[in-house]
């Protein structure tokens, strides 16, 4: 199957044309129709002007951020999310590394670095005044959007124009800006609409942070299928009781959750003997290995009618490249329940994906969903994006760094990393980046950061050796607040332990796992 290039903004405008009065976004119970969102998107694109370059968007979990995303793309620009929770120096570094020239904030008055122009988001009420459900009395339903759209349709976009820039962890302490082209986005969004089987009747919970690419797999397939995207504070409250009630009340049909969060949901359902809301038909998980024990628990619940789909993908290969139904109506039957120690598959390549198993079982991914590379980092790009010839001429592949094997039916199973990267709640973290940040603290002499599995999920544990014995008092707390001022929370270790010395390998390199083994029990 192939997905001819049809830009995602066109796919959205088409959906809006087909379903102008259906809800596009519901936020804490209030909804915005497709015609209203479309008008807001167009107003945003007009305000940005044609080809605005890289547009930083100060994100929030809101319809406004979605209008900024689609508006930036409609204008022919490149979207770059800016997390307002990041420390100021980090935000400035990311804006500079992405080449951001404009910043839109949903709330006016945001501080921006010199050289960056702030743009106010068009007022929603003003932008959507002529797009309300009642406008049908005065005008044909698509007339206003057709007129407004003509100016925008003049912005020509190509499949290899950059659509968005997101950052992945880099070993030097500097995150690497991944540039994803529009063709990759539209290809993958089409593939995901098919994988999820989305129809206008679906209501998809928006759960992922708007700062990570997972949010695009919730937002874009939904809004190009005519389905509704649901934002609700109860989803992020930390209370599963509230979340489950909300899913029921909002008639949510699709959930896309980080595996680690899904593990906690399963645990909650088992302990409370709670039922899942009847509206749910699909639960997508990904980002970390699925725990087979939680999976067995899930299968033993009343979940036979719900598709449970495990997914795999990298930022550099755009959202999801591999998927498999683990349970529910489309899953292969299993002879025996899942047991501890089994490896749960990450799935089969989606139709647009070419895969190759390289040296050491490394998964290489090719095809139209590859990123253009790391902005301003030709060395890092050349290292990970390689040309290989499998007989049909040289083709570009991304080296994922993931070691994989195959199940008898051809699905891939993840067997580990070829480097030291970790997945912390679905976000890739190079421990060297965290070490580089911690080493910047004046009282730290040496540091090792390792992954520690705590209660079904990976967390970071840092072991630090003080530069001088006098600096020991409160050093762990001091390093903690030092980090919180500089890096986002997923790079802050949940445990920092001051130790007399690190463990070294025979060749004299810091042994992260060895240091963790020696001191882990002392840390608890």
């Amino acid at each position, binding site marked *: 199957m192939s997905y001819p290039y049809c830009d995602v903004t066109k796919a959205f405008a088409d959906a809006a044309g087909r379903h102008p009065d259906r809800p596009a976004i519901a936020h804490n119970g209030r909804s915005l129709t497709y015609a209203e969102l479309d008008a807001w998107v167009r107003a945003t694109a007009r305000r940005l002007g044609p080809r605005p370059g890289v547009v930083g968007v100060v994100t929030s979990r809101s319809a406004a951020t979605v209008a900024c995303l689609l508006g930036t793309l409609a204008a022919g620009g490149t979207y770059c999310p800016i997390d307002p929770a990041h420390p100021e120096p980090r935000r400035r570094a990311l804006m500079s590394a992405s080449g951001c020239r404009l910043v839109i904030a949903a709330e006016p008055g945001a501080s921006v670095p010199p050289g960056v122009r702030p743009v106010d988001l068009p007022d929603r009420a003003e932008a959507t005044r002529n797009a309300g459900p009642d406008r049908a009395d005065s005008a044909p339903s698509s007339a206003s959007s057709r007129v407004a759209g003509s100016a925008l349709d003049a912005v020509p976009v190509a499949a290899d124009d950059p659509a968005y820039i997101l950052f992945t962890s880099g070993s030097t302490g500097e995150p690497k800006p991944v540039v994803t082209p529009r063709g990759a986005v539209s290809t993958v969004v089409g593939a995901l609409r098919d994988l999820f089987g989305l129809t206008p009747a679906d209501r998809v919970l928006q759960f992922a942070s708007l700062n990570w690419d997972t949010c695009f797999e919730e937002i874009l397939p939904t809004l190009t299928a005519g389905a509704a995207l649901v934002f609700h504070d109860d989803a992020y*409250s*930390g*209370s599963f*009781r509230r979340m489950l009630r909300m899913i029921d009340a909002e008639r949510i049909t699709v959930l896309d959750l980080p595996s680690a969060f899904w593990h*906690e949901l399963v645990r909650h359902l088992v302990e409370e003997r709670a039922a899942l809301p009847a509206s749910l038909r699909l639960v997508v998980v990904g980002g970390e290995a699925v725990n087979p024990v939680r999976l067995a628990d899930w299968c033993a619940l009343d979940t036979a009618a719900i598709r449970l789909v495990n997914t795999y993908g990298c930022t550099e290969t755009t959202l999801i490249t591999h998927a498999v139904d683990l349970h529910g109506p489309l899953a292969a039957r299993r002879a025996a329940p899942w047991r501890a120690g089994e490896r749960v598959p990450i799935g089969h390549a989606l139709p647009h994906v070419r895969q190759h198993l390289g040296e050491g079982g490394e998964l290489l991914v090719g095809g139209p969903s590859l990123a253009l590379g790391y902005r301003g980092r030709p060395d890092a790009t050349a290292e990970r994006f390689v040309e290989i010839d499998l007989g049909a001429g040289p083709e570009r592949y991304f080296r994922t760094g993931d070691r994989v094997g195959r199940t008898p039916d051809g699905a891939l199973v993840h067997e580990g990393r070829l480097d030291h990267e970790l997945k912390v*709640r679905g976000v890739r973290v190079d421990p060297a980046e965290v070490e580089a940040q911690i080493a910047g603290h004046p009282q730290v002499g040496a540091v090792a950061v390792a992954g520690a599995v705590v*209660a079904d999920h990976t*967390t970071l544990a840092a072991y630090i050796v003080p530069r001088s014995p006098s600096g020991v008092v409160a050093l762990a707390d001091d390093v903690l607040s030092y980090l919180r001022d500089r890096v986002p929370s997923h790079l802050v270790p949940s*445990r920092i332990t001051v130790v007399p010395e690190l463990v070294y390998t025979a060749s004299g390199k810091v042994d992260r796992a060895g240091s963790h083994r020696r001191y882990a029990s002392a840390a*608890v």
Partner: protein
Amino acid sequence: MNVDAVSDIFRRVLENAEVSADSDFFVMGGDSLLATRVLSAIARACGVELDFDDFADAPTPGALAKKIASMA
């Protein structure tokens, strides 16, 4: 729920016996995922449905027990 009952939940979730009335959950290695377990356990024990913000405001067994009492 009294302080001892909340401390017990902390001990179980953090798998750490050294919890006292003023142990900060997030300093002792608790993260948001583990926090959901504490919130579920409290809701199950006494019906009070706290959220992350409540927990962040009152991250110790002592403070949390007071918060629960004020909301029960």
